[in-house]
């Protein structure tokens, strides 16, 4: 029962994916599920948000109606011939074995997640608290903006709205709702990573890479801590996988899926705004520099990307411009103190914190392994589209570095100790995908 809203979202995402891609698609059931969930859960969160704007209160029937209308619309508009199966019969047994593995992982992670049923500190103080306001009667949802600034009232609402959607279908205890959302994302991340790599590598190697992630104890802890970081990580990974699909010229409409995924990112966390803008910029740069394509084709790709990005990012625009208070984490008002903020001591502190976290035993050698992969095959990271994917990590690291330097309202070392593990956590699935993609893929 608790999984029913995720299934409805998955169905909606699947229909939308088929509608966007138009042509009959050849993709594994794992990749289809991973991408359908990313689109579907994003749409569910946005529809829930719009329901507050429309009805000015929590209206479970209204939220269900919006979902129903979208699904009916997609069913009517769907004019695609779906092939009965894209899985060759010879691989059916193998696929069933993989599905069984993921189901086992789901139950294992579900059990472990019961260790923190209310989530960790920031999860209940920031995200679950907002869900409580959203699902209360009347106009309590607007009181979120009057909450104390320690609860980050300016943070966008992807996760609280998604939890409100799950609650509106199931009417279950909010702690169980938040726990199930985190477990669904934690396991789907493994499936999506596996599916993304399976297109380029031997399926057992893809399983090995995703196994490294999903069995890592720090990953399990942070993924089930009910933070929005797991959602951010999921959409970043989806964007990376879709980027590679576009580069392989699989289906030109994947650019629309890419735009949608990027548009969801700003609604998850403030970091998502930077991530989406960087990925948007890098993609535009890639198509501008791509040889052998007509200018009209490049224009069409850019327009599709920007159109779908605006479609899903519109909720964040509404939220940030008309509803949310300004962010207090960083400030540009006291410009006179900027020279003190950009001190060598602070730079060293940031670099030391990141290095210490990379070698933290809690990660079970995973970051050391990824650094090893980078060192032994560093040349491959600069080939073809890889250099663009690498460029994102470089630019994002630079932006995060500057944001840390601009920290004023908190003690920097305290902030680093709280946030560096989480930044590494949400980058980890994409870096794992990227590293295995770079090393394992045969470049023709």
């Amino acid at each position, binding site marked *: 029962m608790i999984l029913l809203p995720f299934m409805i979202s998955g169905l909606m995402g699947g229909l939308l994916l088929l509608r966007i891609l138009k042509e009959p698609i050849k993709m594994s059931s794992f990749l289809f599920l991973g991408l359908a969930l990313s689109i579907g859960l994003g749409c569910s969160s946005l529809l829930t948000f719009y329901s507050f704007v429309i009805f000015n209160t929590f209206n479970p029937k209204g939220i269900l109606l919006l979902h129903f209308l979208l699904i009916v619309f997609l069913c009517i508009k769907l004019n695609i011939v779906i092939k009965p199966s894209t899985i060759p019969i010879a691989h059916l047994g193998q696929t069933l074995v993989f599905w069984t593995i993921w189901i086992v992982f789901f139950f294992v992670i579900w059990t472990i997640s019961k260790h923190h049923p*209310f989530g960790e500190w920031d999860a209940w103080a920031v995200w679950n608290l907002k869900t409580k306001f959203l699902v209360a009667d009347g106009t309590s949802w607007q009181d979120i903006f009057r909450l104390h600034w320690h609860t980050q009232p300016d943070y966008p609402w992807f996760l609280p709205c998604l939890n409100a959607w799950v609650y509106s279908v199931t009417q279950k205890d909010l702690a169980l709702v938040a726990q199930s959302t985190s477990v669904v994302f934690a396991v789907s991340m493994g499936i999506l990573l596996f599916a993304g790599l399976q297109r380029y590598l031997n399926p057992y190697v893809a399983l090995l890479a995703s196994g490294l992630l999903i069995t890592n104890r720090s990953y399990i802890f942070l993924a089930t801590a009910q933070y929005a970081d797991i959602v951010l990580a999921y959409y970043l990974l989806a964007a990376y996988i879709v980027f590679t699909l576009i580069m392989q010229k699989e289906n030109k409409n994947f650019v629309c899926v890419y735009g949608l995924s990027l548009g969801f990112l700003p609604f998850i966390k403030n970091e998502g705004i930077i991530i989406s803008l960087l990925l948007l910029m890098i993609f535009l740069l890639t198509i501008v520099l791509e040889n052998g394509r007509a200018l009209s084709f490049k224009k069409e790709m850019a327009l599709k990307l920007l159109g779908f990005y605006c479609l899903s990012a519109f909720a964040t625009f509404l939220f940030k411009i008309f509803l949310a208070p300004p962010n207090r984490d960083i400030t540009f008002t006291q410009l006179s103190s900027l020279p003190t903020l950009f001190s060598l001591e602070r730079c060293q502190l940031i670099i030391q914190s990141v290095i210490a976290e990379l070698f933290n035993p809690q990660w079970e050698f995973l970051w050391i392994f990824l650094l090893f992969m980078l060192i032994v095959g560093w040349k491959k990271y600069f080939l073809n589209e890889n250099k663009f994917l690498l460029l994102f990590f470089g630019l994002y690291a630079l932006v995060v570095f500057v944001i840390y330097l601009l920290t004023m309202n908190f003690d920097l070392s305290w902030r680093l100790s709280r946030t560096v593990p989480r930044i590494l956590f949400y980058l980890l699935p994409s870096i794992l995908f990227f590293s295995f993609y770079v090393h394992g893929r045969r470049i023709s």
Partner: protein
Amino acid sequence: MTKRPQKILTSWQLCLLLALLILAHNLIILKTMYLQSLIDLRRIKFLEPGHEHLDFKDFLGGAKEIGFLTDKDMSAEKNDGQFLKAQYALAPLLLDLNNPNHEFLIIDPTSIFSALEINQDLKADFVHVNGFNKILAQRK
């Protein structure tokens, strides 16, 4: 002419071997975590954050916003004070930190003497004092 020595493992194969070792190591830890969880879930009762303030709900009537007064360190770095826990437990009620201009006030003092000191200017009645030394006061 010297013959170039043949590699035993390519860099990719070496990466896969290391990945396998890490995965095996992870699976051992995962098994321990899973079994430990099964044991803990039978033994430990997990309490909701802010459960220390839940009993105040019965006294607040239809209040929409109340004050939360404390002499504890409420800086962002030390926000392990009880304020956010109380906010979470009593939501969707709004808590106003260190603003005494409300009918109902939760007082979270470091000691009973500091509670009396906080209340000196307010002259509020203590409606309820619970076992966690949290006080609900009401101003007339």
